[in-house]
C-alpha cells in the first residue's frame, strides 16, 4: 500500500527525496501517513483537496482488493 502512495507522491512533488510514507495498521485497517516538504504540501493536497482525494480513491481500490480498508493522512 505504501509503494502506491510513495510512487504517486514522488512523481508529483518538486522534492521527491523528502517524501516519506509510513504505514500503520489497526483494527480499522491500514493508516498511511504521507509527509512531504512544506513547499510540496499543496502539490499532494490540491485545490479543495482534489489530489489527496484522487490518491485516496486509488488506495481504496487496492485496499478493497486486499480485503481491507486504508486511510491516507497528509502530515
Amino acid at each position, binding site marked *: 500500500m505504501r509503494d502506491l502512495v510513495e510512487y504517486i507522491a514522488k512523481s508529483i*512533488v518538486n522534492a521527491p527525496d523528502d517524501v516519506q510514507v509510513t504505514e500503520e495498521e489497526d483494527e480499522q485497517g491500514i493508516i498511511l501517513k504521507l509527509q512531504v516538504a512544506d513547499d510540496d504540501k499543496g502539490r499532494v493536497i490540491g485545490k479543495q483537496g482534489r489530489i489527496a482525494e484522487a490518491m485516496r480513491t486509488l488506495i481504496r481500490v487496492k485496499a478493497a*482488493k486486499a480485503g481491507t480498508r486504508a486511510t491516507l493522512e497528509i502530515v
Partner: protein
Amino acid sequence: MDQLNASREEIKVEILSAGKSGIFGVGTEKAVIQVERLSPMPELEEDAHNKKNVAEVAGEILETLLDLMDIDATTMPESLQTTNGEEQVTPPLAFNIQGEDLGILIGRRGQTLAALQYVVRLIINQQMKVWTPVVIDVEGYKQRRSESLQALAVRMAEQVRIKGEPFTLEPMPAYERRIIHLALTDHPDVITESTGEGDARKVVILPDQGSQS
C-alpha cells in the same frame, strides 16, 4: 501559452503582479503576466516527435500505477476520434484498459476512473512539464456512457419540447455534463444550463424561448 501555441520553454514570462493562488483555491486572484515568445514556432516534425514521447511516458505511468494497485490488466493506446465534430486542437492521448473484473477500476459513476486519469495527468505534467490531455477508458466504459448520455439528452429534450417545462438531470461530473451540453447545442427548441455546486452540479434542459440565435 495556449494562445501562443508555445511550450513553457519557448516563452519568457514576466510577472507584472503576482496574484494569489490562495491555498486550497480560496481567495484566488489572477496574476497579471506578460508573455513573450523566445523561439520561432516549433517544426511540426519536432512536435510529432515530442507527442510520441509523451505517449510512451504516459503508457509507462499508467502501467506502473495499475501494477502498484494490483490490477491485472492490459493497456492499449488508442487513437481517439473527435465526437460531434467538436473542436479539438490537440487530439488527446487515449488509453483503453482491458482485463477481467475491472468494475472496481471504474467505480461509482466512473469516480475511480476519473481519479486514475487525474493522477496520470498530474504525473505527466510534473515529468514532462507540459499539460497533456490524457483520456483513460476501461473496457470502453466512457464510450458506452457517452452514447447513453447522448441518447438520454435527445430523449429528455423531446420531453421538454412537448411539455414546455424545464427538466433537470441527475448530478454528473463535468465531462458528462459537457456531453449533454454538446449533444443539445444545435437543438432548435431547447437550451441547456448547469446549476448547483460541486458534486451536485447538474444540467437543466429548458425550452428555448426563441430569443436565442
